[in-house]
C-alpha cells in the first residue's frame, strides 16, 4: 500500500528489493502511475480513508488477479518482507481454508487480529469471503483503523486468525524495526506486551531465523536488509535452527556454487 507522495521515496525501494520475489506485486495508490507502475484506487489519501483503501485494494485484486495466486499479502511501503520465508510458512497450509496470518494482536477481537504495518496474508478463501461480505454489506466500513476493522470483519466471516510463529514458537511478523525488537529491553512501546497475542520474547528470542516481516523500515534499510538476508552470509556456517520441511512440500533448490 502506497500513495503519490511516497511512491518515489518509499515504494520504489520496495519495488527494487523484496517485491521482486512476489509472483505478482501491485502498488496501490490513489493515483494511477503507468511508469512505476501503480494502481489508482478511488480513495483519498490519509488515515481516515485507510480502511477503505485496503478494501478497495482487495476488491481490485479479487476482480483482476484472483486466478494468479493462492495467497494475498498486504504490506505497507515501509514493510520489509522476506518472501521465501512467507512461502515456507504457508507451504503446509491449504489456500481453500479461510485463514489469515500476520503479527497477531490480542485486544478488541476475540480471536485476535493482525497488525497492519507488519503485513498480513489472506488465503484465497479468506479473500473471497471478504469481498463477498462487502458486496452483501455483511461487513461495512466500521472504522478507519484498518487492521482492527478488518480483523473484526474476518472474525465475523469465520476466517481463522492463524499462528505464524515458527516451530520454536518465535515470531515471524514484526510490527517494529529489527533493531528495536532485538535490542530494546524495556517494553518497545508501553502497550506492546498488552497487545501481543503471544507472550513477548526479548533479545535474541524476539525473532525467528525465518522472519517474514519488519515494519517502519526506511528505503535505505530495505537495501540493507536485502543485503543481510539474501547476500551476505558466513561461509560454511551451519545455523542452529534448521526447521523441517512441512509435509507435502517439494525439496528445496540447491545453489550451484
Amino acid at each position, binding site marked *: 500500500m502506497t500513495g503519490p507522495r511516497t511512491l518515489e521515496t518509499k515504494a520504489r525501494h520496495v519495488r*527494487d528489493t523484496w517485491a521482486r520475489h512476489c509472483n505478482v506485486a501491485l502498488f496501490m495508490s490513489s493515483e494511477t502511475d503507468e511508469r512505476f507502475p501503480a494502481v489508482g484506487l478511488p480513495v483519498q489519501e490519509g488515515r481516515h480513508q485507510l480502511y477503505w483503501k485496503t478494501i478497495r485494494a482487495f476488491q481490485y485484486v479479487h476482480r483482476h488477479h484472483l486466478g494468479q495466486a493462492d495467497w494475498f499479502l498486504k504490506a505497507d511501503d515501509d514493510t520489509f518482507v522476506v518472501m521465501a520465508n512467507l512461502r515456507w510458512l504457508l507451504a503446509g497450509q491449504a489456500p481453500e481454508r479461510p485463514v489469515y496470518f500476520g503479527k497477531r494482536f490480542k485486544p478488541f477481537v476475540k480471536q485476535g487480529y493482525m497488525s497492519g504495518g507488519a503485513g498480513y496474508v489472506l488465503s484465497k478463501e479468506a479473500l473471497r469471503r471478504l469481498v463477498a461480505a462487502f458486496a452483501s454489506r455483511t461487513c461495512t466500513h466500521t472504522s478507519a483503523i484498518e487492521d482492527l476493522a478488518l480483523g473484526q470483519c474476518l472474525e465475523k466471516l469465520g476466517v481463522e486468525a492463524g499462528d505464524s510463529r515458527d516451530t520454536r514458537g518465535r515470531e515471524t511478523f514484526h510490527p517494529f524495526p529489527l533493531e528495536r525488537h532485538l535490542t530494546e529491553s524495556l517494553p518497545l512501546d508501553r502497550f506492546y506486551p498488552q497487545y501481543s497475542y503471544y507472550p513477548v520474547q526479548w533479545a*535474541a528470542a524476539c525473532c525467528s*531465523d525465518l522472519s517474514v516481516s519488519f515494519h517502519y523500515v526506511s528505503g535505505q534499510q530495505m*537495501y540493507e536488509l536485502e543485503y543481510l*538476508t539474501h547476500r*551476505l552470509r*558466513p*561461509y*560454511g556456517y551451519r545455523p542452529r535452527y534448521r526447521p523441517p520441511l512441512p509435509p507435502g512440500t517439494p525439496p*528445496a533448490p540447491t545453489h550451484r556454487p
Partner: protein
Amino acid sequence: MMSESSSFVKGMVLGGAFCMLVTLLGHIKVGNGTKAHHHEHHHIQAPNKEDVLNLSEGERVELSKSIRVYCIILVKPKDLGHWAAVKETWSKHCDKAEFYSSENVKVFDSVTLNTNDMWVMMRKAYKITYERYKDEFSWFFLAYPTTFAIIENLKYFLLKKDPSQPFYIGHTMKSGDLEYVDGEGGIVLSIESLRRLSHVLEDSDKCPEQGGMIWKLAEDKQLAICLKYTGVFAENAEDSEGKDVFNTKSVGALIKEAMSTHPQQVVDGCCSDMAITFSGLAPNHMHVMMYGVYRLRPYGHTYNDALVFLPPAGSDND
C-alpha cells in the same frame, strides 16, 4: 648588559630549533633506506569456488579445523558499550579472542597494557600475543571495538594461503609512499609476519615506540612502517569480483553511498557477499549484524560449501 642577554637568548632559540630539526629529520625515513620495491598496489583475492571444490572431503575437514584465528581487540574503558557488544557477538567465533585494554576494568576480563597510547598498546598486544600464542595459532586478527567481523569468511579467505608466508592483509590505504592496512577494517597477520614484527619491535631505530617528534603517526601507519623493514607489505583483500572484503564503514554507510552512485543496482554494487568486516558500528548495530548475518536467511537456499563451521557452544544469538 641588554644586548648580551638578547644574543644569548637568540643563540639558545636558534640552537634549540636546530636541535629539534635534526631530531625530526632523524625520524623521517626516506624511501631509499628500505629494500627497493617497485611501487604497486598489492591486491589479494579470495580463493575461487572451483579451487575449493577440488579438495577432497578429508581435506575439507582438515582445513576447517586447521585455520585457527586468534583475535586481539584493543579497548579502553570509554569503549565499554562497544566492548560488551563485541564480547557478546562476533568475537565468540574466533578460536580465541582476548581484549587488550589500556587499563584494568572490573566488569570484564582483559589483558592490561597500562598505557593509553594506541601505538604502544598495539606493540604490547602483538608482543604478548607472539610470546604466548606463537605455537597455537596461524593467523592473528586485530580489531577495534567499533568493528564487526565474520570470522568464517576470514577463514574462507585464508583457506589456501600459507601462514608461513609473510601476509599482512586488510583494507589498504596509501599515505604518500606508504601502503598500510587501515586499522578500522581490521588487520590480519600470518604467524610469519607476527614473528618478523616481534623482532623489529626490538629495533628502536627502525621501529621506535615514540612515533614522531611533533605529530604522532597513527598506529596503523606505524605498524606498516615497521613491517616494511622486515619485508612485509600490505595487501588489499578482495573477492572474486574485485570487491573489498574488509570494510572501514558500516553496511548502512556503504548502502547509502551506493544509493547515490548507482541507484539502479544498490545491493549489487554495494558490498561483497563474502565480506569479512564492517566498521563504525554502534553497539546495537553489532546485535543487528549478528542476527542479520548468522540467523536471518531466506528459507530454501542451500549451499555446497567446502568448509563446515559449527556454532560456538553456550551462545544463543547465532
